[in-house]
């Protein structure tokens, strides 16, 4: 495992700051013509940045970078990928919405326990349900190459202390459980998060049971 050095936290904060600075240009994503930028710091086990453009609310295309630092051994993998996301089904109810997304992509990966850059395939799916007061999502992200296979499963359950209006700040309290396969992390990594969004900016931050920072920022424009 790579230690959570101040330098790495500094790099993350720089990234988050960079994304936040683009917020003045931000516009939404969940419709044709929208762009989403996202950065996540996953408690020292994963770091990811993504950018997607959505020609339609049904699909988006883009790419990302994922770094995986094993908590079990010293292995580190850096994956760069292109990806397409597709909304398989959306249920628009009177006071709720539910979605099923899938995605697939390909890219290259390098690591400290294998040489060169290896082809890496990526596939995943997400199902979510939300009202203005409760939220739940289950996401599975799978990466496969000749050198490694990793799957990251993430469960999030959230509750909002109040039902936000369109022009208000939304606040959510979220519990996250995450498992990694491929000797990245033993067991389930639990985290408690505070999520806040308003306008084009979405920020969530919290702490894992190990005391590590778990955070994410997203901007739509």
């Amino acid at each position, binding site marked *: 495992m790579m230690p959570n050095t101040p330098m790495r936290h500094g790099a993350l904060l720089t990234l988050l700051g960079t994304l936040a600075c683009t917020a003045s240009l931000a516009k*939404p*994503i*969940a419709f*044709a013509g929208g762009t989403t930028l996202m950065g996540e710091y996953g408690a020292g086990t994963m770091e990811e940045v993504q950018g997607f453009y959505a020609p339609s*609310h049904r699909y988006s295309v883009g790419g990302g970078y994922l770094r995986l630092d094993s908590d079990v051994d010293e292995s580190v993998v850096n994956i760069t990928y292109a990806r397409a996301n597709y909304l398989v089904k959306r249920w628009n109810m*009177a*006071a709720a919405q539910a979605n099923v997304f899938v995605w697939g992509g390909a890219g290259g990966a390098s690591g400290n326990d294998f040489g060169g850059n290896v082809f890496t395939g990526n596939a995943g799916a997400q199902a979510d349900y939300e009202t203005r007061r409760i939220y739940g999502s289950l996401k599975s992200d799978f990466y496969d190459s000749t050198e490694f296979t990793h799957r990251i499963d993430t469960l999030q359950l959230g509750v909002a202390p109040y039902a*936000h209006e369109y022009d208000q700040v939304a606040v959510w309290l979220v519990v996250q459980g995450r498992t990694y396969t491929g000797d990245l992390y033993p067991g389930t990594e639990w985290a408690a998060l505070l999520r806040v969004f308003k*306008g084009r900016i979405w920020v969530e931050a919290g702490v894992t049971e190990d005391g590590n920072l778990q955070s994410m920022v997203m901007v739509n424009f």
Partner: protein
Amino acid sequence: MRTYRLLSIPALLLFSLMSAAETVEVTVNGLVCGFCAQGIEKRLRKFPATRDVLVSLEQRLVAVDLREGATISDAELTEALEGAGYAVKGIRRTDTPIAALREQVKAAGQ
């Protein structure tokens, strides 16, 4: 007296146009997240006929204030909202000013 008459003509014309101003109120399903619903506002503001847009998650309402003499058809509104990922459940055209609707939404939220 003649000056008064001359001034009153454009005033009456303006009043007539203002009273003809139209607000389209759309009932929408799936409107639960302000962050996600921004697409609605952006799409609707692209119509040249749009003067203002109001979105209320609580009321499941999307209201469009139309410019005088301009309009957006039901089909265009439905296409825009469904293109943003939401389900249109009803459209009605009123002369309620959007400012009044905004006040109603604010009052309902208190």
